């Protein structure tokens, strides 16, 4: 029923109110989703789509936005079915994903890169075994196979990036199997993502490298064979990244740029976006009592009690660097002194979604045990 709703939504959105139909289709499909995790993920997807309206300026759009929302719903549809239809739906998700990336005229290079990496990934997945695992790691965007990820994130709108960052890994990571390969790539990715993050100049690129760093935790959980922790991590990651990307979108809509040097001091004009970004920055770095900490805590517990102390320490160091990078970005982008005038603040859709996400980040952390028992039956 969930999938049918998405296809119906894709068709309807071509004719009337694409944003509203897109949001509603995701909400309804969330209602009909079979399990708690998918319900929550689709609910978050609907929030990001609602907040992502007017994401790409009209003059930058390559084709009409009603087509974009149709592609978006089909992208979600194919991701939801990756588990059932295997590589066919993976290919479909890549095709729809590329179509969405191409919505922005300036995203040709990014789309080309995405397509090339995904093509390699699909070929490897078809090879099966260890090659298939490597293909999945490329699809996730882990270092050193991550080049497509910052390219796509830095030219796409927030709805798309949030879906790429939140929904895609949730649907793909579950197919990873416990392996040393996943653990090694995860360790490299955790460190590389965090180190590269601190020298980025734009908000979206910072978030891209933060995602590479975060996916490392997801891959590590699967490398250790802990599906429960992976589920908690992807859900928390989607909540955090949705808040981060929507705040970024609010900034770009107001100022036309996300270059950190040119921002500074917008917290006075956009307190909710600034607050949400700050809380999400802490949450994504695993600071308790926010939603991002619990999955990581369980992962560290498994690593340390399971004898992988050095690996845990490496992740902790990477996490520390990532926290520094995120906080620095937040301060420089939102908090510095500013004499800006004439900014109107967040739009209603951004504001409402950011408030919901703030509540989710706080309550998700306070009730982490309850949340995890709902989505994995007591991790």
């Amino acid at each position: 029923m969930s999938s049918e709703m998405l296809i119906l939504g894709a068709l309807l959105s071509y004719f009337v109110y694409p944003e509203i139909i897109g949001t509603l289709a995701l909400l309804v499909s969330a209602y009909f989703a079979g399990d708690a995790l998918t319900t929550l993920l689709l609910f978050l997807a609907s929030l990001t789509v609602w907040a992502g309206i007017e994401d790409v300026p009209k003059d930058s759009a390559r084709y009409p936005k009603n087509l974009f929302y149709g592609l978006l719903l089909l992208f979600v549809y194919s991701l939801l079915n990756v588990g059932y239809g295997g590589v066919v739906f993976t290919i479909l998700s890549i095709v729809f994903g590329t179509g969405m990336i191409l919505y922005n005229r300036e995203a040709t290079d990014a789309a080309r890169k995405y397509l090339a990496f995904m093509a390699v990934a699909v070929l490897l997945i078809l090879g099966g075994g260890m090659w298939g695992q490597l293909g999945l790691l490329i699809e996730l965007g882990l270092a050193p196979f991550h080049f497509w990820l910052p390219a796509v994130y830095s030219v796409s709108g927030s709805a798309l990036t949030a879906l790429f960052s939140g929904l895609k890994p949730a649907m793909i990571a579950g197919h990873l199997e416990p392996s040393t390969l996943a653990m090694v790539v995860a360790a490299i990715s955790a460190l590389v993502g965090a180190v590269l993050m601190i020298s980025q100049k734009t908000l979206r690129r910072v978030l891209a490298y933060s995602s590479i760093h975060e996916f490392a935790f997801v891959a590590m959980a699967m490398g250790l064979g802990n599906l429960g922790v992976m589920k908690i991590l992807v859900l928390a990651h989607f909540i955090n990244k949705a808040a981060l990307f929507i705040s970024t979108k609010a900034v770009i809509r107001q100022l036309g740029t996300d270059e950190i040097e040119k921002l500074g001091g917008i917290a006075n004009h956009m307190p909710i976006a600034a607050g949400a970004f700050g809380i999400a920055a802490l949450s994504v770095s695993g600071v308790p009592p926010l939603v991002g900490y619990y999955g990581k805590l369980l992962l560290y517990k498994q690593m340390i009690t399971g004898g992988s102390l050095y690996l845990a320490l490496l992740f902790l160091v990477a996490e520390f660097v990532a926290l520094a990078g995120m906080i620095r970005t937040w301060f420089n982008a939102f908090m510095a002194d500013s004499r800006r005038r004439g900014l109107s603040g967040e739009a209603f859709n951004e504001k409402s979604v950011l408030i919901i996400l703030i509540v989710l980040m706080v309550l998700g952390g306070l009730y982490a045990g309850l949340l995890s028992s709902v989505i994995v039956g007591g991790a």
Partner: protein
Amino acid sequence: MAGAYTALLAIVVPIISALAVVGVHFFFPKEIGRSVKKAIGVLAGLLTLYLVLSLIGTGIDTKVISFFGMTFAIRADPLALVFSFVSALFGLLALAYNTGFFTPENRAHEGSNEFRSSFFMLLFLGAMQGVVFSENLLQLFVFYELISLCSYGLISYWYHEFHSRHGAMKCLMMTHIGSLSLLVGSLLQYGYTNTFMIHGLSQSLFSIPSAVLTAVMLLFIVAAMPKAVQFPFHSWLEEATYAPTPATAFLHSAALVKAGIYILARFFSDVFMPYLKTLQPTILAPLIGNLDPFHAIIALVGATTIVVGVSFGFFQEDIKKIIACGTISQLGYMVLALGAGGALGTTAALFHMVNHAFSWGLLFFCAGAIMYRTGLRDMRKMSGLLGNMPITAGTAIVAALAISSVPPLSDFVSKWLIFETLINLNAPLLFGAAFIGSILTAGIAIKMVQIYFGPRRFKVKEVGPALLLPQVGSMGMSLFLGIFPQVLLTFLIIPAASMAFGHVPISISMFGLLQSPIGFLSSTVAGIAIFGGIAIGYVLFLSTYRRVDIYLGGLKPEKIAYDSSQLYFGVNRGLNIMKITVLDPDTYYRKIVGFGFSVSERLSKMESLIDGKLTGILGGREEEKQQ
């Protein structure tokens, strides 16, 4: 009500009040809302204090309690109660101060409002209670991080100013090191004990391999150091003074820094004691006494911090930073006393911890009052404030006497106990550090009170009662605890120390006469002797006073006067060299951060190069741009 339930309420009441402050801020009209927020702050402080006081004498109570779907493992015991009492009482004073600080007359920061300050201070108070009453290590970790977050929110209060942002980030990153250490230590021990309960760990100590237990204990020491501002993790405290004054006073005197002291007291005077008692003294025994290796590390860190902290104070001209430096040093005393260990050392450390809150907190309140009126932080621009703000000046002078350990003020008693511990321990190195630190502390006290004397520079008046009452209250506590130390010792400190060590070798008589292993002490009698002596001397001086012209070698004395500051030139120079070369860890931190950035930039360049080539291969345009 059972102790654990009351303790849980002491955690919950400030946190709910913090949420109420948010509600009021967003949903009440501005003017009414402001008064309601202030009232919520003070009432929550009062209620928390009442709950904490009601725990006195209830003994030890441990329970796992479900509350609104969350599970808390709570342990109310005498050790937790000491810390809880200090944070609740001083928290109340700071919240009261907060009500008068954010007004349009505040020249230091015009136009600011108290919303975030009230919210974070209340949340902080709740989290601090959570730290001390937690029986579960992971729960402790969460509250421990929560207080870091609150400090971060408070220090970055004026976020448009660079110093505030920088200070907040430094505080968060440094204290995060401690939290991560606590987390790793907790998870490491879990692999062997299969429990996160703190006293479960205590019962299973001998089931952990000694190498692992050593690592766990070292991690717990590192966990405490940044929050307890111990060398080399102390440098964030100076920059934390950019928080609003009520918050600074609270963080520096009663909350954040005390959380670090609590970790040391809880684990090294309680939880790990059964194992530590089995260890042999170190080879440094002739210098530091018969201490086991872990207590030796703690004591040496404390001793170093005493000297480093107070030395840095000599170079400060900032009215709040100088107090922060002194605070670092005083925390060194507490850590030193905890490291010296035993019943007497723990008693001394806990007593000094309580006294420190009131005497150094009072100094922050006075500094805040001066900034409120003058808008200045630089002490070189201030003088003659005694005439402008006599009550503030009076309380500040009492505070300066207190930190210089002058009887009958409370610091005298706790410092006495610390010195007595070190004498009993036969630890000349530690005694020397404490002794030098004490002298230097008196030195910075003199530097601090100089601003009240000399010619008047400002046309400002005394601050209002909202700012004066907390000052007078803190001063009153400092006097009360000095004259009647037996009250605090009997009801709070000795029960806490005897929980781990059994007998505490101090007996108390009716009039505050403390009988300890090396003799007896009465702060009141000592105070009467000193001030009585000064009074008699002054009377004698007045009775024989007459003005005569003095000539030295045929010259008036002012002609041949020697600038007394020259006497300290050598000391000053020595300290300065030491500060720049050895003792300032910021030098090394800057190098580490610089190295991190250079690695990141190199890696980024390398990545761009590969990325460009890749784009070129795929027929893109980026390679052309790069070429």
